């Protein structure tokens, strides 16, 4: 249906703004077919205006008032239920945030990195990397980035110090530490090795 067809209905039902109405009335004066169309639609619309409203039965109204009366108790119950849910949600959020905070402080705790050096048991992967090389079963899975830098991450026990030292010694014979001054400033505990000489 094009806009021209809709205009007669918009005009009949006062859905036009004053300027549109004026323009349409000008068209009506010029176009007899349009005038006939509008008048015949107006005639039908006026007939529809004679429809009387139908009243609902009184018993039905009483039944609905009864439901509204009962709402009083339900609304209060609903209020307490909402409060209960809100409190439970708050406690849950608090507990989750607490656990997350504890975990993050565990990871950054200076006590754990105490004495850490190139030869010490704790090694860190690049924290900006989204990839993780930690395997929960204890197996370390190193990975190499585009710059041929080898990354690995694990937390070693003190009892494994000797074995770790031996791995490092062997690594230093074949690989060289990455000397990126910017990175070494921001990440002092990173150990990056590369096969590029």
């Amino acid at each position, binding site marked *: 249906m094009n806009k021209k067809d809709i205009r007669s209905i918009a005009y009949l039902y006062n859905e036009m703004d004053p300027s549109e109405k004026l323009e349409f009335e000008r068209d009506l004066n010029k176009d007899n077919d349009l005038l006939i169309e509008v008048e015949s639609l107006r005639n039908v619309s006026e007939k529809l205006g004679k429809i009387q409203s*139908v009243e609902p039965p009184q018993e039905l109204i009483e039944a609905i008032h009864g439901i509204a009366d009962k709402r009083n108790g*339900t609304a209060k119950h609903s209020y307490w239920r909402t409060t209960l849910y809100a409190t439970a949600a708050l406690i849950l959020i608090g507990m989750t945030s607490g656990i997350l905070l504890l975990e993050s402080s565990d990871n950054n705790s200076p006590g754990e990195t105490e004495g850490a050096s190139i030869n010490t048991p704790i090694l860190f992967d690049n924290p900006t990397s989204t990839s993780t090389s930690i395997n929960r079963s204890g197996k370390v899975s190193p990975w190499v980035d585009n710059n041929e830098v080898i990354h690995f991450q694990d937390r070693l026990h003190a009892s494994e110090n000797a074995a770790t030292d031996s791995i490092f010694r062997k690594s230093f014979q074949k690989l060289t530490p990455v000397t990126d001054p910017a990175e070494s400033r921001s990440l002092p505990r990173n150990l990056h090795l590369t096969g590029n000489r």
Partner: protein
Amino acid sequence: MRLNNSDNIPKNYEQMQDKELVHLFRKKDDQLAFRELMNRHQAKVYSYIFSMIQNREVANDIFQETFTKVITKMDDTYNEQGKWIAWVMRIAHNATIDHIRKQKRFVDVTSSYDEESKTDFYERLPDEDSIGQHDKMELDESTSSLLKHISKLPEEQRTVVMLRHYYEMPFKEIAELTDVSINTALGRMRYALINLRKMFDEEHEKESNNL
């Protein structure tokens, strides 16, 4: 149209706006406020449902379902920024359309042959003239004749006609309620009027031939 029981409602409630009454009912469980709201709008809401369904019993059920939802969901889903009655009409409209669509879905005419009466679906349909005979008696002749014609319109056109003529709803609100553009709503009204004009002409012709 107001019912007689409006006499029990204090005068100051009659002067309040819908939103003030809604606020009183929601926050203070003021039953008189709810009764005043019902008095104001019940006839139009009921008329709309009845005109769409054309069956008193079903219209009663849908009307009750509508207001039960209104009462129970007013705290959760009604946002006081919008017009309360537009929200109520949306509930009434959705319940009515749901019913009409369910009816369409569940009437499987091909498999409804009744062995006992040896009749099929069409044979068991009541005569057109006997539909709503009881209802017609309560309505004046022109209203029941108009409703008979309107009931023959496609659902979308009938909806626009009834929302506009019973509820005097602006086309912008009709468009929002029925999830169409304002031009589509206007277009549906135009087709509805053209179809009704045709029906009136045919009826007029029949009457002239009978004379």
